[in-house]
């Protein structure tokens, strides 16, 4: 007896950006298309040093499944990735390494600080711990929690997707952005 075939009909597609549609074509602005493509194909680079990394693994796993949001493929080389996820305590001795990983990523690149330690140093108010990774690299989204639930990490990634989608194509060449990079001593 053949098995009944089930088709998944509840597929949710990305909305078409606003524009002018006709038969066989859709005209819209370039940055909307680029934003759409970037938003839904973020390549995560996990930089997990402690317990937030465990929560991040749950986020990537089948229960929470970051793949639903187009960020399926982890790249374990910074050169392929555009979303750096720093999950965990960063010691001061680790700071230059984190900075080097960030520098090796190609533009455009975004950073999420997952958890209290990556955001502020957390409970480790100590001589050996970096008091927030924004002391060495610019951060786009901070996820609070100690450690944050996978839902929290997903929420942070959705927030980053909004940032990515609405980012102007000229932002990375702007004087404001150059000033931000210079304030971190990059370039």
């Amino acid at each position, binding site marked *: 007896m053949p098995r009944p075939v089930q088709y998944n009909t509840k597929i949710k597609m990305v909305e078409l950006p606003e524009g002018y549609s006709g038969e066989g074509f859709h005209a819209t602005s370039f940055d909307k298309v680029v934003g759409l493509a970037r938003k839904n194909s973020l390549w995560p680079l996990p930089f997990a040093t402690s317990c937030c990394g465990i929560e991040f693994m749950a986020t990537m796993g089948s229960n929470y499944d970051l793949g639903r949001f187009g960020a399926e493929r982890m790249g374990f080389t910074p050169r392929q990735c555009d979303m750096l996820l720093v999950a965990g305590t960063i010691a*001061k001795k680790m700071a230059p390494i984190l900075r080097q990983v960030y520098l090796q990523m190609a533009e455009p690149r975004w950073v999420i600080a997952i958890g209290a330690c990556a955001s502020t*140093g957390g409970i480790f*108010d*100590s*001589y*050996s*711990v970096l*008091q927030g990774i924004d002391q060495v690299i610019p951060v786009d989204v901070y996820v609070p929690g100690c450690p944050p639930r996978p839902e929290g990490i997903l929420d942070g990634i959705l927030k980053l997707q909004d940032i990515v989608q609405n980012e102007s194509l000229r932002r990375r060449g702007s004087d404001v952005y150059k000033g931000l990079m210079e304030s971190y001593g990059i370039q």
Partner: protein
Amino acid sequence: MSLTNEIVKQRLTDKFGEQLTEWEEPYGMLTLRAPAEMNLKVMQFLFDDEQLHFRFMTDLTAVHYPERKDEELCVVYHLQNMIENVRLRLKIYVPVEKPDVYTASKLFSGANWMERETYDFFGVNFIGHPNLIRILNVDDMDYFPMRKEYEMEDPTRRDKDDQMFGRG
């Protein structure tokens, strides 16, 4: 006959006499104090003596006593006789202005990294150490963090003020 604390103490007193002081036995572990310049002589005797045979260094660390004048830094050696399973704690005191101690790394190879760690955190200057550089902290750190000279919280943090912790 098993090696007891009394025998160890008797052997050491026979050899060094009144120079060893502050004999204690907290939790059954024999503890004594030696003059700072005699640390190697005492350890060499404990190492070589056929009866004592303390040939393993379990631990080496330091303690900072800010209130003790001219003997602020205490270097603590934990030695063990692995045949009889007897442990011993040897303490020496040095002033924090001139924390010079002879290295034990020639006698116990394991002391090499432990002395580097003690230097890293307390700034004890181990004379004769082959490579006395920082081992755990960042190389450009310009202070010794475990000395009791510093405030508890990182002074580089601007987001924490006393009012937030109810002690303003």
